[in-house]
């Protein structure tokens, strides 16, 4: 096995192009488990820790460019106000030690249906910035997840960053698991209101082969809010709307039975998470200073 230590982003891309089978390693919280247990013996590890740009974030024109190598702990500490949904999801990842090392780039690389950043990336219409020596391309999160643990990366590509709007409406993330720490999601749900665009964004985790949006639920709620003038009036949301939203989210899932839960439980839990998070974001919207121009 080789251990490649690029000192810059350009070197990292060159190394990946020269040896596409090299496995990138950022926080190592997925890769090292596989190596320790002999599930993976790549010809080379490509260490991304030395690439300083990957661990940086910046903000321009209301959009955050979050380097693929910024660990969850820093997202929580530094970006909770700009990216509340992603910070919330980050708080639920593993343990302090895991959050000190694990990254969104690694979550995207692993592309597990249970990855906690995915529902938020979907709900917030994030873009994944993907790069190789051939150039840079932007992949909308909704097109990034291609199958169970498969993503849109070509063999010579790396994730450079994710781009997310600074929140212009309330966001929530909720996850069901057996305890409060160190829990892989039984199911998870991300919700973002985009009052400036009259849009509702959703993301479902751990309840389908890939993370996915609940498109019908999004459209139902956006139409409901527009038709009844609720974006402007900020009136209370009928219980029937919340329940219907929950049903539509559950219907968008295609969960399986496994050791963590049955498909039926996952569907039920998702409808509860969707109903609850909708209650929370709506309360926040009514109280908060978010502006609507739908």
């Amino acid at each position, binding site marked *: *096995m*080789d*251990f490649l*230590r690029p000192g810059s982003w350009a070197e990292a891309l060159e190394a990946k192009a020269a040896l596409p089978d090299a496995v990138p*390693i950022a*926080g*190592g*919280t997925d*890769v*090292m*488990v596989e*190596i*320790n*247990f002999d599930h993976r*013996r790549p010809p*080379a*590890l490509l*260490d991304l*820790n030395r690439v300083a740009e990957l661990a940086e974030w910046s903000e321009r024109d209301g959009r955050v460019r979050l380097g693929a190598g910024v660990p969850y*702990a820093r997202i929580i500490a530094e970006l909770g106000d700009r990216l509340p949904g992603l910070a919330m999801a980050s708080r639920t990842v*593993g*343990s*302090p*030690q*895991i959050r*000190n*090392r694990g990254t969104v780039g690694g979550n995207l690389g692993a592309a597990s249906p249970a990855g906690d950043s995915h529902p938020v990336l979907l709900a917030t219409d994030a873009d994944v910035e993907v790069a190789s020596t051939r150039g840079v391309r932007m992949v909308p999160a909704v097109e990034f997840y291609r199958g169970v643990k498969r993503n849109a990366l070509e063999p010579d590509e790396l994730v450079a960053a994710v781009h997310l709007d600074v929140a212009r409406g309330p966001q929530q993330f909720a996850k069901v698991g057996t305890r*409060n*720490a*160190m829990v892989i999601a039984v199911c998870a749900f991300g919700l973002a209101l985009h009052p400036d665009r009259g849009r509702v964004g959703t993301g479902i985790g751990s309840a389908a082969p890939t993370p996915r949006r609940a498109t019908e639920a999004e459209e139902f709620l956006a139409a409901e809010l527009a038709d009844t003038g609720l974006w402007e009036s900020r009136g209370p949301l009928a219980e029937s709307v919340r329940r219907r939203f929950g049903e539509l989210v559950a219907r968008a899932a295609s969960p399986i039975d496994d050791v963590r839960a049955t498909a039926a439980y996952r569907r039920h839990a998702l409808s509860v998470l969707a109903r609850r998070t909708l209650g929370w974001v709506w309360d926040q919207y009514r109280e908060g200073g978010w502006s609507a121009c739908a």
Partner: protein
Amino acid sequence: MRVTFTVNGERREADDVWEGESLLYVLRERLGLPGSKNACEQGECGSCTVYLDGVPVCSCLVAAGQAQDREVRTVEGLAEGEDRLDPVQEAFVEAGAVQCGFCTPGLLVAAHDLIARTGQPSDAEIREALAGNLCRCTGYEKIMEAVRLAAARRAETRGGSPEVGP
């Protein structure tokens, strides 16, 4: 490959390191520092917790090569010299927070970091900070006590708030 990094303030070198090897393995098997424990090798138990550039991490999930030129502090590096334990270590002994001791090194590093960062943590903060460290013996109550004790003492010696826990 050869890996060179600073451990507990000393520049150390490990040779013939396999490229897929973990920092934990290098510490224990190549550098003679068996304080950090290997229990799960999958990030679940926290018994291998060390500081990497001042941040607590599971050393079983750091590739040895990733530690090159960086600074590692293990449980062996918490005490000052041979016979002066760190106040967090003392508190663990006094509170009876150690039974079999397997989880202790990782808990000490995690608790040490918490107290350095927060001074006087609430119980909720202690639980959160130690959520990545499993103990199969104590039931955690004595560990909570030890961390409260260490934090209160630290606050005192720093001339901080005089309030001492229950």
